[in-house]
């Protein structure tokens, strides 16, 4: 805990987030006092705001508390997302398959906690193999392809994808990096919305997500890239990552993968014919609706950084299993 605020970027992000929350409260409070906007709109804003007040400590708290907390929080997030994904797609009716995905998620996060990279990687094909054979003994081939396709999809996104976010906590300097990612994907959403409203113009992919515009996507790309490159410069000072081209690439990666994650979830929901993945977060919809961007960002960013400077280099490995 003593290290929690060791990096100035950590302090900066936490302070900036607190400031934004305070400002938002003042703005919505002002609207309420002055009677601006319709009551329904103000209620929606307060609902969203209330959800953020609960969500932000749950997101930032574990990251600040330490590695085990971070990986624990990622595990819980992945299991909650699995529950939503399974209910939305109908996979939840397949108890055996859902159980194997849940166990796969637990195993991947255990490997992250253990800092055992080989096992972490081995679990991706191995869980797939177990999924493919798990329901064979039931002698019920009807729906075999569908349940396994959905299960592998869920495992890859929620087990493997989110698992990379937890694995980052094996690096002693993970706090500013993870907080930057959480802040950047939130900013990416807000920037896309704001630029889209300000400039408007052509729709991005009207069949997938009718409210997104090309101007919003490009605006978010520029805004998020600038923020990530700036913070990345502070986080990676003095390392091989601290090169303008790599930092810009990192920024583009966060923004593009974030927006793709959003569009991916929109595609899933459109295909099924539902509006939200759930209703766990008032004003937001489901938990997956809020964290969709993270699913693709985490592995993309992890492997870029791991390739260039390494993640958790020199740290003790297999801290739980030994060997």
């Amino acid at each position: 805990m003593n290290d929690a605020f060791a990096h100035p970027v950590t302090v900066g992000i936490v302070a900036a987030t607190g400031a934004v929350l305070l400002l938002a409260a003042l703005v919505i409070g002002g609207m309420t006092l002055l009677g601006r906007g319709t009551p329904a709109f103000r209620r929606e804003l307060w609902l969203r705001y209330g959800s953020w007040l609960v969500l932000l400590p749950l997101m930032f708290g574990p990251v600040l508390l330490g590695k085990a907390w971070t990986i624990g929080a990622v595990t819980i997030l992945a299991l909650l997302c699995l529950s939503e994904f399974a209910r939305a797609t109908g996979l939840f009716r397949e108890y055996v398959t859902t159980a194997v995905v849940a166990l796969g998620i637990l195993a991947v996060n255990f490997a992250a906690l253990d800092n055992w990279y080989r096992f972490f990687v081995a679990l991706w094909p191995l869980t797939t193999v177990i999924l493919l054979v798990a329901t064979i003994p039931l002698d019920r081939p009807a729906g075999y392809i569908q349940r396994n396709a959905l299960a592998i999809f869920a495992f890859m996104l929620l087990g493997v994808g989110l698992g990379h976010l937890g694995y980052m906590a094996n690096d002693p300097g993970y706090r500013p990096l993870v907080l930057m990612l959480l802040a950047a994907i939130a900013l990416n959403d807000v920037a896309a919305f704001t630029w889209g409203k300000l400039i408007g113009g052509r729709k991005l992919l009207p069949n997938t997500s009718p409210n997104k515009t090309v101007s919003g996507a490009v605006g978010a790309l520029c805004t998020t890239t600038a923020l990530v490159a700036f913070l990345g410069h502070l986080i990676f000072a003095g390392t091989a990552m601290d090169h303008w081209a790599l930092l810009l690439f990192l920024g583009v990666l966060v923004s593009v993968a974030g927006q793709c994650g959003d569009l991916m979830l929109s595609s899933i929901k459109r295909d099924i014919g539902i509006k939200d993945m759930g209703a766990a977060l008032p004003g937001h919809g489901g938990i997956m609706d809020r964290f969709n961007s993270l699913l693709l960002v985490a592995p993309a960013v992890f492997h870029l950084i791991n390739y260039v400077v390494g993640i958790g280099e020199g740290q003790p490995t297999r801290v739980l299993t030994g060997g």
Partner: protein
Amino acid sequence: MDWQLRPARDTELSPVARLRSHSREVGLAGAVVQGLWRRGVRSYLRLFHQLDVVGRENLPADTPYILIANHSSHLDAMSLGAMLRGPAARRAFALAAGDVFFGSVRSSAFAAWAVNALPVWRKRTSSKDLNGLRERLEQDQLVYILFPEGTRSRNGEMGRFLPGIGALVAAGPVPVVPCYLEGAYACWPASRRYPRPGKLRLTIGAPLEFSAIANDKAGWMEIARQCEQAVRGLKG
């Protein structure tokens, strides 16, 4: 190949709204909790009530079906739910009084997560609700456990059956299995807060079928009458 994405009926409900919803579907976590609860109840009924089940062969091999019984105690729904096995046990929903079991969020959570109950609101359950329950029964191949008297007997004597049961099965293929539970009133009457040990005997009768009875008020009354007669006939 049959590729269908069929979301849970309650996908877009909040976790709290889901507890009281007739659309609630059970996932892996719910199935595990209910399986544990059922095991616990089975052990309890065996140890403290020496529950004896007669006529198990009368249970239909496949779902859907409806289990009905006389009602004098909370032990009734526990006994009927616990004696089911396999897929029928996992697909069983107990139709329970909304005001007793779904008053607070905490009791709703218990009723939904452990008992797998669906709320029926006295005098407030509309024909739309009943039709919804009827459709789900057939589409999802469920088992409903219900007590057509509508409330626990206050003197141990079986009361009149209400016609609601008719609206679920009239002119349809779903069979009704009559049951009679003996000893529950002595162990845990409505006036007692906690149960006391004592022998329970559950008799399961032959399934009744109502496909030839019209789905109207007169038909529902007739079905309620026949069900009542069948349950009374099982009394030893």
